[in-house]
C-alpha cells in the first residue's frame, strides 16, 4: 500500500502547515458581541505613525480626535473653537499670548498634563530632524526658523517664542500679530504629549496615550484598534458608549457588505457605487452633510500661457462654462454641493462662508462664458486638458463631465479633455515641481474650520500649498491686515475682502463642496458627523446595552 502511505504523508504535511499558519490568529478577534455596548466602526489604515504632528490624513486624524483634548476644540455642530484644556488664552497685542491650563488635567496613563506637555510637544513637532509632516503649523511661533531652517541643519532645539511660566501656564510669542491664531489650537498637531512619548518613543507608537475622551486599550497595526472611555477625562465630550472598536477593511465595498450583514455598526466611507441605493438598503440610517472639503480646478499660473494679460477673463469664463448643478446630481448623486465660494459651508456665515460673494462668476452661463473666453483671447492654443490622478476616487467621471460642459459651451468637442496620471504620488509630484502646463484638479481639506485656512496656504504668495503659483500683492496685504485685526469679526470681513479678489483673478475654479456620509446599523443610534466629517463617536449610543 505505497499509495496510501504517501497520501497520509501529504495529508499530514497539509495539517502541519495549516496548524503552523494558524498560530497567533486566535484570541485577538474581539469582534464585539451583541450587548457589550461597544461601537464597531469602519477604519482605514493610518498612513503614518500616530504622532500628532505627523498625521496629515483622515484615518489617523480620527484616532487623534478621539484620544486627545487640545487647548481648544471645535464644536461638533457649529465648528466654533471653544476652550477645553485651556482655562484662558489672553493677549494684549495679538502677538504675545498667555495660555493657562485647567487644573488637574491628566493623560490616560494617569500622568499630569502640564505646560511642559504642550511646549515639549510643539518643540518636537517643529524640529526639522524629527521629520514631522505638520511641522509648518508651528511656523508662526518665534524661533521657528532656527529649529526648522529652509536648508541646512537646525541651530536650536527649541523655539524661543515658547516659555513655561509655571506648571499650568506658558507664553507664546509669534513672529507677527495674528489675532485668530488661538483658534488654530484645536488642530491636533497642537496636542500635548506625555513623558512616555519622549522617553520610550517605540512603546508610545504601539499604543499612543492622550488626554482625550477615549484611551487605547489595544492596537493591532493594520487591522484594528480598541478604545474605551478614558477614566481621567474631565472634558465636556464624555463617551455615551462603552467603547469603540475601529476595524480596518481592505475596501469600503467589503465594509458595506459587512454593515448590511450586521457585523459593522458605523461606516463613514459609503462606496460611490452604493450611493444610489444606500437609503433603501439601510432603511434611512444614512446621513449626508457638507464637510470642510472643497474641490477646485487649479491653473498653472507659473506658465506664461495661463498668466498672460486677459487670461483672467478666460479663467472666469471657464468657471462660468461649468454646469456644477447637473454634474453634482448626475455624477455624485447629490453627495457634492455646488460651490459658491472658496471656503466651505461648515464655517457658517459668521465664520466667513458666503453664498453671494462670488457674484455670477460661479454661475453656469454659457453665453457670458463664451463671450469672456473670446474677449480674453481664448484658451491658450485652442486646446486644454484637466489633469487628474486615475488611481483613486472617481475623478475620471467628473473631469470628463466638466470638459464636456466646457466643450458644449464653446461648441468645440476638442477644446477640453481629461489628462489622467497613473498614481496620486506622481500627480502630486508634477504639481509640486511646477511641471503642470495645463489646469489640474485639486482638493482642499481644511485643517481647522477657519476662513484663513482656506485662503492663506493656497493663495497667498509663497503659501505652503499654493499649487497655482498665484501671487497678488493686494491679496497678500489684505490677508496680513486680517491676521492683525483685533477681533475675529473684523478679521473675517478682511479675509472675505481678500477672497473677493479671487473671483476676478480666478487662480482656481471652485467646483463643489464634498459632503461627508455615514451609514449605520440598527444596533446603534445618534450617529452624527462633525465639520471634519468624522463620526462623533462619543455621542453614539448602543441600543439595549
Amino acid at each position: 500500500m505505497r499509495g496510501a502511505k504517501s497520501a497520509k504523508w501529504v495529508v499530514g504535511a497539509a495539517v502541519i502547515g495549516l496548524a503552523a499558519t494558524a498560530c497567533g490568529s486566535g484570541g485577538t478577534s474581539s469582534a464585539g458581541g451583541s450587548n457589550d455596548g461597544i461601537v464597531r466602526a469602519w477604519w482605514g489604515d493610518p498612513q503614518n505613525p500616530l504622532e500628532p504632528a505627523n498625521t496629515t490624513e483622515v484615518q489617523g486624524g480620527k484616532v487623534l480626535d478621539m484620544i486627545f483634548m487640545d487647548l481648544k476644540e471645535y464644536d461638533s455642530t457649529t465648528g466654533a473653537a471653544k476652550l477645553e484644556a485651556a482655562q484662558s488664552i489672553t493677549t494684549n497685542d495679538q502677538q504675545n499670548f498667555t495660555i493657562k491650563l485647567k487644573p488637574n488635567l491628566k493623560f490616560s496613563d494617569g500622568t499630569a498634563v502640564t505646560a511642559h506637555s504642550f511646549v515639549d510637544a510643539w518643540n518636537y513637532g517643529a524640529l526639522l530632524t524629527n521629520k514631522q509632516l505638520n511641522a509648518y503649523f508651528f511656523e508662526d511661533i518665534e524661533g521657528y526658523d532656527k529649529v526648522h531652517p529652509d536648508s541646512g541643519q537646525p541651530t536650536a532645539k527649541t523655539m524661543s517664542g515658547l516659555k513655561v511660566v509655571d506648571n499650568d501656564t506658558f507664553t507664546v510669542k509669534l513672529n507677527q500679530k495674528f489675532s485668530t491664531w488661538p483658534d488654530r489650537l484645536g488642530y491636533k498637531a497642537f496636542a500635548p504629549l506625555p513623558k512616555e512619548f519622549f522617553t520610550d518613543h517605540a512603546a508610545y507608537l504601539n499604543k499612543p496615550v492622550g488626554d482625550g475622551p477615549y484611551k487605547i486599550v489595544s492596537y493591532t497595526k493594520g487591522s484594528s484598534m480598541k478604545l474605551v472611555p478614558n477614566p481621567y477625562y474631565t472634558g465636556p465630550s464624555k463617551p455615551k458608549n462603552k467603547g469603540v472598536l475601529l476595524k480596518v477593511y481592505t475596501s469600503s465595498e467589503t465594509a458595506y457588505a459587512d454593515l448590511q450583514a450586521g457585523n459593522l455598526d458605523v461606516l463613514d466611507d459609503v462606496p460611490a457605487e452604493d450611493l444610489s441605493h444606500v437609503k433603501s438598503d439601510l432603511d434611512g440610517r444614512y446621513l449626508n452633510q457638507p464637510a470642510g472639503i472643497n474641490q477646485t480646478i487649479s491653473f498653472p499660473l507659473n506658465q506664461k500661457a495661463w498668466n498672460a494679460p486677459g487670461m483672467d477673463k478666460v479663467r472666469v469664463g471657464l468657471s462660468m462654462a461649468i454646469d456644477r448643478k447637473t454634474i453634482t446630481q448626475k455624477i455624485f448623486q447629490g453627495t457634492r454641493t455646488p460651490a459658491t465660494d472658496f471656503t466651505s459651508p461648515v464655517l457658517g456665515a459668521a465664520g466667513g462662508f458666503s453664498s453671494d460673494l462670488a457674484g455670477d462668476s460661479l454661475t453656469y452661463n454659457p453665453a457670458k462664458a463664451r463671450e469672456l473666453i473670446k474677449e480674453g483671447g481664448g484658451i491658450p492654443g485652442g486646446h486644454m486638458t484637466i489633469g487628474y490622478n486615475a488611481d483613486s476616487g472617481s475623478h475620471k467621471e467628473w473631469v470628463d463631465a466638466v470638459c464636456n460642459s466646457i466643450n458644449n459651451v464653446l461648441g468645440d468637442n476638442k477644446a477640453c479633455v481629461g489628462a489622467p496620471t497613473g498614481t496620486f504620488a506622481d500627480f502630486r509630484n508634477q504639481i509640486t515641481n511646477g511641471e503642470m502646463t495645463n489646469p489640474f484638479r485639486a482638493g482642499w481639506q481644511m485643517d481647522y474650520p477657519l476662513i484663513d485656512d482656506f485662503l492663506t496656504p493656497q493663495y497667498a504668495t509663497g503659501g505652503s500649498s499654493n499649487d497655482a503659483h498665484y501671487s497678488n500683492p493686494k491679496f497678500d496685504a489684505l490677508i496680513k491686515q486680517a491676521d492683525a485685526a483685533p477681533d475675529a469679526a473684523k478679521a473675517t470681513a478682511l479675509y472675505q475682502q481678500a477672497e473677493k479678489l479671487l473671483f476676478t483673478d480666478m487662480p482656481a475654479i471652485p467646483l463643489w463642496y464634498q459632503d461627508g456620509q455615514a451609514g449605520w446599523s440598527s444596533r446603534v443610534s445618534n450617529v452624527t458627523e462633525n465639520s471634519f466629517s468624522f463620526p462623533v463617536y462619543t455621542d453614539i449610543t448602543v441600543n439595549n446595552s
Partner: protein
Amino acid sequence: MGRYVVRRLLQMVPVFIGTTFLIFVMVYALGDPVAAMFGDKTPDPATAAQIRHALYLDHSLPAQYVHYMKQIFTGNFGTAATGQPVTQLMGTAFPVTLRLTLVAFAIEAVVGIGLGLLAGMRRGRFADNGVLVFTLLVVAVPTFVTGYLLQYFLGVKWHVANPAVAEGAPIGDLILPGLVLAAVSLAYVARLTRTSVAENARADYVRTAVAKGLPRRRVVTVHLLRNSLIPVVTFLGTDIGGLMAGAVVTERIFNVHGVGYQLYQGILRENPPTVVGFVTILVIIFLAANLLVDLLYAVLDPRIRYA
C-alpha cells in the same frame, strides 16, 4: 541528478536579480514617495529633504538598488510609511495568505480531481457534459465577479457565511474566499484530470486489473487515478505560487489582510520598501515552486535528468 540541481539553482540567480531590479525600477517610476506622504498638501521642502535623506532617496537609482539589495541580504527589508518594519508586515501577511492559499489548494485539489474523475469515467454522458459546461463557466467569469456575487448572496442576503473575514482570518471565514480563489484553477484541474482519466481508462493495465477481478474501487483509486494524476500534480505544484499572487483580488474583496492587501496598500501609498519587499518574496516563492516541479519531473521522468 546533482549537476542538474546545481544548474537549476544557478539559473535562479540572474532571474532573481533581473526580476527584483525590474520591480525596483517600476515602483520608483511611479512617482515620488515623499510627495505622496503629504497628501493633497505641498511638501515642506526642508522636511521632504530630511525624509528623502533618511530613506536613501537622495541617491541615484542604481545606488539605491545596490543599497537595497545589501540590506535585504542582512534581512532588513526597510520600513513602511506607518513606521513598521516591512519584515513585520510580512510576518503578519504571509501566514494569512498561506492559509488562504492552502484552503484554496485543498478545495481545488479535492473538488477539481473529483469532478475530473467523474467526467472522465462517464465520458460523453450527462455528467461529463455538465462538468464541461460548469468549468467553462467558471473559467469565463472573472474572479471579482464571482467574488462579489458570492459575497452578496451568501454573506449579505442569505447569511450563510460572513461577507468579510474577521480579524486573524479564522479558517471558517476563509472557506468562501478560498472557493473564489480556487475557482479558476479548479476548472483546469478538473479538465486535466478528465482527459487523463479518460485516456487511461482504456489502458491495458486497467483492463488487466478489471480482468483480475479486483473490486471497482481499487481499480479506480489505485490503478487508474494514480497514473492519471502525474500531469495534475505538476500543475498543482506550479499553481501554489499563482494562487498566492492571485490572492490580491480575492483578499481585497473579502477583507483578508494578507499579501495582496499589503501590496495594494504599498502601491496606493507609493511605498517602495513594502512593494519591492513583498514582490521579492513572491518571486522567491515562484522560483522555489518552479524548481520543485522541475525536480519532480526529473524524478518522475529519467529522460529529463540526462538531457
